[in-house]
């Protein structure tokens, strides 16, 4: 692939200096970004390992939770369970902290204990049964797992975006910007040499004419 040169540059020594300075800068930037990209990918692959297992945990925990819920609903009625669930509310707050992985801000989530004791749930034990308790406990445990999953998934997403961005930059530098600068520098250098040769020949010519006259 022939690389085009930057248009409109004058073949002068000043321009040559400026361009070769820019070229070495771009090349340095390319190397740095490449390192950043590799480090990010390594980090990304590390986190990705956890995503699947975290999701599997959530899925299997929720499956048991729904199962218990259905049995509870079958035993004491869907409406009753719905009403009871209304009494269980409390403040669940998640603390968001930010961790920095190579300039990517990823969340760290932490929460208070979500699994409650039986007598902390806020419903009476008279009209309820143990399946309902189990369902509630399983949903609480599932919620803890889900919060963990949320953290990991968000980290993976953020890292993936950053990897993509860095990759695009590296490629732009590597395949477009640096080659174009390099080609332009070469072009100017060749033009300058050509001009030097021209003036050399011209001088020789003038000298010869002057000598033949004199």
């Amino acid at each position: 692939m022939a690389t085009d040169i930057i248009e409109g540059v004058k073949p002068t020594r000043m321009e040559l200096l400026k361009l070769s300075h820019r070229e070495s800068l771009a090349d340095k930037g390319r190397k740095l970004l490449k390192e950043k990209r590799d480090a990010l990918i390594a980090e990304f692959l590390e986190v990705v390992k956890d995503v699947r297992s975290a999701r599997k945990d959530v899925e299997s925990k929720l499956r048991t939770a729904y199962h218990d819920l259905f049995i509870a609903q079958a035993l004491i009625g869907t409406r009753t369970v719905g009403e009871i669930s209304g009494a269980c509310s409390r403040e669940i707050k998640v603390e968001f902290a930010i961790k920095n992985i190579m300039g990517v801000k990823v969340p760290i989530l932490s929460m208070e204990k979500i699994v409650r004791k039986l007598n902390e749930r806020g419903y009476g034990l008279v009209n309820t049964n143990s399946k309902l308790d189990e369902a509630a406990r399983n949903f609480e445990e599932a919620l803890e797992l889900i919060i963990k999953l949320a953290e990991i998934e968000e980290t993976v997403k953020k890292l993936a975006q950053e990897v993509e961005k860095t990759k695009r930059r590296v490629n732009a530098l590597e395949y477009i910007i640096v080659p174009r600068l390099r080609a332009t520098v070469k072009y100017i250098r060749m033009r300058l040499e050509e001009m030097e040769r021209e003036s050399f020949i011209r001088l020789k010519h003038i000298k010869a004419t002057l000598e033949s006259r004199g």
Partner: protein
Amino acid sequence: MRKIVVIGDSDMITGFRLAGIDGVYPEKELTGSLKGIMSDESVGIVLIGEKTAEKNREMILEINKRVKDGPIIVEIPDKTGPAVRETDPIKELIRRAVGVEIE
């Protein structure tokens, strides 16, 4: 400190209310509520049923793009179990980031 809200069918809502979440929204009202939820800064995590999310994929993506630092959306299976998807979103992420498929 930010709170958790749930969007889903009635069983999902009952279940997570049992776990103690009080911010629950039935999936039928999604169109009206999602925008408000996403721009509410006190909301940290949105749990949404996979099927509900699938039905409203475009709207979610669109809102997600517009709201910076919005809540984290987690898609969780509903009572019928994990949804079978054509493309595994995680796999897609890996493919785009690394360029190769990794199991």
